[in-house]
């Protein structure tokens, strides 16, 4: 019987998140697209196991995440992940850093669950045997093993979000970037995803409008018009964010 333990397949449950955490450094990063400034001279570092990011729509939160894995090229400045340049070494960074998109339908590429999980593994060069092992392990880890052969278009929104997350975790990233992970979920699935997120051994950087989700994070950053305007403990930053947007 194949070993589908989380340690072998898609993560290291029980590991200390701060031990897995990568150091992500933005140095004077600006992003200008179509004449609009998405990020404006951002200099910040992330090395905590949990970091929350809040801000209004269009404030630059998603752009910040995409810069980390080289999906968006800064107009100025650099982003480094554990000392590797996010643009020049994007492939290597994507091997250790996964991104969970807001809408799982934009992230799931293959028509069935097990094939989709295998997609990322194939891209990263895993053998067929190890791919099968990791797919099974990631599904077990998130409690969705019965969905393995299901067709994506038959799944609920919550199930799709977990499948997308399983696809990210299957490659054993050290960091998972979450882009508004609960935006499309009902209350039950939101609570389920919150439990999953809190139990993750991987470093997590979470962009969210769901302030409850970030309430016990050690660090939260607030972005406004592409600039970091507040950075500190969740209680302080979230209170300021609520007050500023009354």
């Amino acid at each position, binding site marked *: 019987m194949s070993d589908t333990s989380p340690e072998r397949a898609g993560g290291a449950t029980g590991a200390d998140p701060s031990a897995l955490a990568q150091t992500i450094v933005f140095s004077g990063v600006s992003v200008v697209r179509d004449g609009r400034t998405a990020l404006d001279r951002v200099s910040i570092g992330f090395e905590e196991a949990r970091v929350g990011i809040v801000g209004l729509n269009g404030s630059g939160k998603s752009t910040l995440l995409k810069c980390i894995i080289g999906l968006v090229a800064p107009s100025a400045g650099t982003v480094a992940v554990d000392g590797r340049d996010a643009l020049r070494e*994007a492939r290597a960074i994507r091997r250790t850093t996964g991104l969970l998109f807001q809408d799982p*339908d934009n992230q799931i*590429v293959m028509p069935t669950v097990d*094939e989709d999980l295998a*997609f990322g593994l194939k891209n990263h060069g895993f053998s067929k045997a190890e791919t099968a092992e990791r797919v099974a392990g990631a599904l077990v880890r998130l409690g969705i093993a019965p969905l393995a052969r299901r067709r994506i278009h038959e799944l609920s929104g919550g199930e799709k979000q977990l499948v997308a997350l399983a696809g990210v975790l299957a*490659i054993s990233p050290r960091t998972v970037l979450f882009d508004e992970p609960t935006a499309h979920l009902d209350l039950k699935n939101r609570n389920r995803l919150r439990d999953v997120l809190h139990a993750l051994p991987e470093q997590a950087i979470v962009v969210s409008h769901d302030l409850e989700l970030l309430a016990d994070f050690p660090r939260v950053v607030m972005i406004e018009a592409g600039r970091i305007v507040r950075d500190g403990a969740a209680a302080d930053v979230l209170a300021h964010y609520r007050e500023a947007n009354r």
Partner: protein
Amino acid sequence: MIAALARPGSSPLHRTAAARKLAALAAIATLLFFVDAPAPLGFAFAAGLAAARSTGVRFAEIGSDLKGPAAVLAVLGLADWWLVDAATAVSVVLRLGAIALFAHAVTVTTSTAELTAVLERLFVPAERLGLLDAARAALTVTLAIRFVPLIVEEAREIRQAQAARGLDGSITALAVPLMVRVIVRAEALADAIDARGFPPERAVVAPSRSPEIRPDREVPTP
């Protein structure tokens, strides 16, 4: 046919290599276009039905999966009967019906990943000639299979929203927002595909438990 997709099973067709099944399907389809007599076409239709049933899928499900092609065939048959004669109409319906049934048998016994792998291999000669990128071309086919149901669902949502505003029946009111949604989704999907490490690293020998991290071969220009 899209709705059919692969279903788990252990039939002989499930155990047959995807490349062989696709080659046989291509050969049968080609051969049938050289046959006009209703008797052999009827035999082919029956064989197609037997092949589809041999996969373990019930006749009712086969019928449900092939509703769309059956409707098109009915229209084609009626048109041939009207424009040519009944014998031609029967031949056309039997020929295309047989091909659809064989294709169904292949579809339900072949995973999309297997299909993509075969297509990728088929595209390699064209890639060597510099005509296309085999991995990307195969992925395009996969994405079509994945996203057709989603786009149909989005079209239904838009149609309902427009109907609520009294715009039911307007093609423009459906087509424009649908196109915008598809374009926006395509952009997000392109990002997701990149984020998941596509294109595959072909040169890499199967990595160990912790694959060696290698720098990108190409350096994007900031």
